[in-house]
C-alpha cells in the first residue's frame, strides 16, 4: 500500500511533498513558525504564497503558541486552515491544541516527528505527537513520503466531515521521511480540488446573520456534555477515515485503511509498529519468511481514535506480539502503542503474549537486524509461552 508504481514518478523529500500538497490544497490561512525538521514545509509554502501560486493568507507569528492561536481564530471564522511543526514547537502549542479540538475546529497540522528536549536533539522519535495523543486531535502516522502526501488530502476531508469536525495531525518521521528523497507520484491539481471540495464552515464567527459563540465559559452543568459530544465525534472519525481512505483508493489507486497488515494472516508472531520503521521491519519479515518463519507486521495508520476492535481482530490468531514504541511513557506500563494494543486485546478470548520494546529514541537507527532480533525473541515466546522480559529498551 505504501509504494505504488503509477504514472509520473518524481523524487521528493517528505517536507517538499507536504509543502506541495499544501499548495494544491490552497488553504485560506496558514499561520506557522518554522522549526527543524519541519522547516522546509513552512519555507517552501511561504514561497508559494510570495509567488502568488496560492490564495492563502500567510500569518508570520512569534511562536508556535501564537501559530496555533492564529489557526484557531481563522478556523473559527470559517477558513480552511493549515500549519506545520515539530517537537518543542508542538509542545509550545499544547494548551491551544486542546482549544482547537474542544472548539471542534477542522485544522490540519503536519507534525514532523522529533524528540523532545532535554537533552536537546533534532532527530526522530514520537515523543512530541504521542504526548499530544489525548488532546482530542485525530492522528495519522505515515510510513513513506507518498503516504504523508496522500494523508494530507485525506486529513482535510476527515477533519471537515460533518460527523467529525475535529483537527487532524498528520505525522511523518523527522529526517528519515522529511529529508529523504523517495519515489512518489503527485496528483493533478484538478484531482485534488475534486477530492477535497470547497470548504463551507457550518458555523462561522463572521456570519453575523447567524451569530455563534466559540470557546464560551461552561460550568459543571454543561462542560461534561461538551466533552461527551467531542468524545463521540472522535469515535465517529474511525469509520470516516475508512470511507475516505477507500474513496482515495478508488480515485487514485492507492487505498488506505485504518491499519496495514503485512504477512499477518497466517503469522505466528507479529511486530506492531508505526511510521517509517515499519518499512525496515518489512524487509526483516521477507528475510525470515524465506527461512520459513511465520512472522508479520501490524502497522496502525490511525492512532487517534485508536481502532481497538480492528487491532484485536487483526491479532487474534497470533501467538506472540511485540509493540515497538519510538517513545517512552516514562514510568507508564510500556510505551503508548503497547498500552493501547494490550488493552485492545483484553477482551479477546485467546490473547497472544505481548511485550513492549522502546526503540530509536532521538533518531537512533533501527536496522533490519533489530527487527530480526525482536522476531527471534517472539518466536521463542510463542514456543515457550513465557515472556521473560515484558518491557525493555532496544537499539542500544
Amino acid at each position, binding site marked *: 500500500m505504501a*509504494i505504488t508504481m503509477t504514472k509520473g514518478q518524481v*523524487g521528493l523529500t517528505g517536507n517538499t511533498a507536504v509543502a506541495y500538497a499544501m499548495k494544491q490544497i490552497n488553504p485560506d490561512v496558514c499561520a506557522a513558525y518554522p522549526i527543524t525538521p519541519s522547516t522546509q514545509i513552512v519555507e517552501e509554502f511561504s514561497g508559494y504564497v510570495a509567488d502568488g501560486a496560492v490564495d492563502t493568507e500567510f500569518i508570520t507569528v512569534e511562536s508556535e503558541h501564537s501559530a496555533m492561536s492564529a489557526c484557531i481564530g481563522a478556523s473559527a471564522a470559517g477558513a480552511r486552515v493549515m500549519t506545520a511543526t515539530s517537537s518543542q514547537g508542538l509542545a509550545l502549542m499544547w494548551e491551544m491544541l486542546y482549544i482547537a479540538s474542544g472548539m471542534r475546529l477542522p485544522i490540519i497540522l503536519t507534525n514532523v516527528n522529533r524528540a523532545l528536549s532535554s537533552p536537546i536533539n533534532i532527530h526522530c522519535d514520537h515523543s512530541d505527537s504521542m504526548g499530544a495523543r489525548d488532546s482530542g486531535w485525530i492522528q495519522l502516522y505515515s510510513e513513506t513520503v507518498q503516504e504523508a502526501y496522500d494523508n494530507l488530502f485525506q486529513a482535510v476531508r476527515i477533519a471537515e466531515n460533518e460527523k467529525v469536525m475535529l483537527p487532524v495531525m498528520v505525522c511523518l518521521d523527522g529526517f*528519515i*521521511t522529511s*529529508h*529523504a528523497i523517495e*519515489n512518489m507520484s503527485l496528483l493533478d491539481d484538478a484531482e485534488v480540488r475534486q477530492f477535497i471540495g470547497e470548504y463551507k464552515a457550518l458555523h462561522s464567527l463572521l456570519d453575523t446573520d447567524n451569530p455563534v459563540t466559540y470557546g464560551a465559559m461552561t460550568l459543571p452543568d454543561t462542560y461534561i456534555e461538551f466533552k461527551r459530544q467531542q468524545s463521540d465525534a472522535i469515535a465517529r472519525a474511525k469509520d470516516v477515515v475508512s470511507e475516505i481512505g477507500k474513496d482515495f483508493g478508488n480515485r487514485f489507486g492507492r487505498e488506505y485503511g485504518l491499519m496495514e497488515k503485512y504477512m499477518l494472516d497466517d503469522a505466528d508472531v507479529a511486530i506492531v509498529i508505526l511510521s517509517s520503521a515499519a518499512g*525496515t521491519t518489512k524487509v526483516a519479515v521477507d528475510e525470515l519468511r524465506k527461512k520459513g518463519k511465520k512472522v508479520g507486521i501490524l502497522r496502525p495508520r490511525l492512532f487517534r481514535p485508536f481502532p481497538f476492535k480492528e487491532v484485536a481482530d487483526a491479532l487474534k490468531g497470533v501467538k506472540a506480539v511485540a509493540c515497538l514504541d519510538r517513545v517512552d511513557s516514562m514510568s507508564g506500563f510500556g510505551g503508548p502503542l503497547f498500552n493501547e494494543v494490550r488493552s485492545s486485546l483484553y477482551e479477546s478470548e485467546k490473547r497472544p503474549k505481548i511485550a513492549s520494546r522502546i526503540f530509536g529514541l532521538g533518531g537512533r*537507527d533501527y536496522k533490519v537486524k533489530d527487527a530480526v532480533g525482536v522476531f527471534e525473541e517472539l518466536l521463542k515466546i510463542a514456543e515457550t509461552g513465557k515472556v521473560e522480559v515484558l518491557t525493555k529498551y532496544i537499539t542500544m
Partner: protein
Amino acid sequence: MAYFEVRWHGRAQQGIVTAAKMVGEACLRSGKYVQAFPEFGPERMGAPVRAYNRVSDEPIRLHCQVTEPKYILIADPTLIPTVNVLEGAPEDAIFIINTPKSPQEMRSELKLNSKKAAVYTLDASKIAIETIGRNMPNTPMLGALAKATNVITLDALIDNFKENYSKKFSPKVIDGNVAAMNMGFQEVKGE
C-alpha cells in the same frame, strides 16, 4: 534485493547533499527506485557532513541508514584523518576522492588493506574553480561517479541537471556545472 549504495563525505557548503539529491533524481529518471538523504548534525559551515544514496530496481522499503556503502565519495580529503571514511566499507568498496594526488598515494593514505577495493581520484576543486568559478567539488565528482559505475550515466546526470535546475540557476551556472561534470568524467583516474 540488490541495492546500489553510496556514502558522501564532505563539509557543509560543499554541495554533497545536493550531489546525493542529483544522483537520486538521475537514477529515478532511469526508472529506478531511489532514496537520497543527508545525515544532519548541528548545521554550520565547514562541519563534516554525510549524505547517502540507496538505489534499486524494486521499491525500497528500508528506512535505516546506509551502513555498508560500496561507493564512498570524499569531497574533502582533509576529512580522512578526522572522520572514519572506511566505516562499513565492504572489501570491494570503490573510493572516489577529490585530491590532486594519485590513486596509489590515496590508497596508502587511506591505509586500505583490501586489494579488491578500487580508488579513483580527481582534482575536483581545480575543475570546479575552472568551470564554475568557485570551489564546489560536487558536480565534478558526479561525473567521476558516472565513470566509475555503470549504474548511473553521465547523460542521465546532465539531462536531469539541465531540466530540474534551469529555473533555479542562471544559464552560466548551468553550463559551468555541465562542463564540470564532463571534466570530472574525463579526468578521473582509477586503479
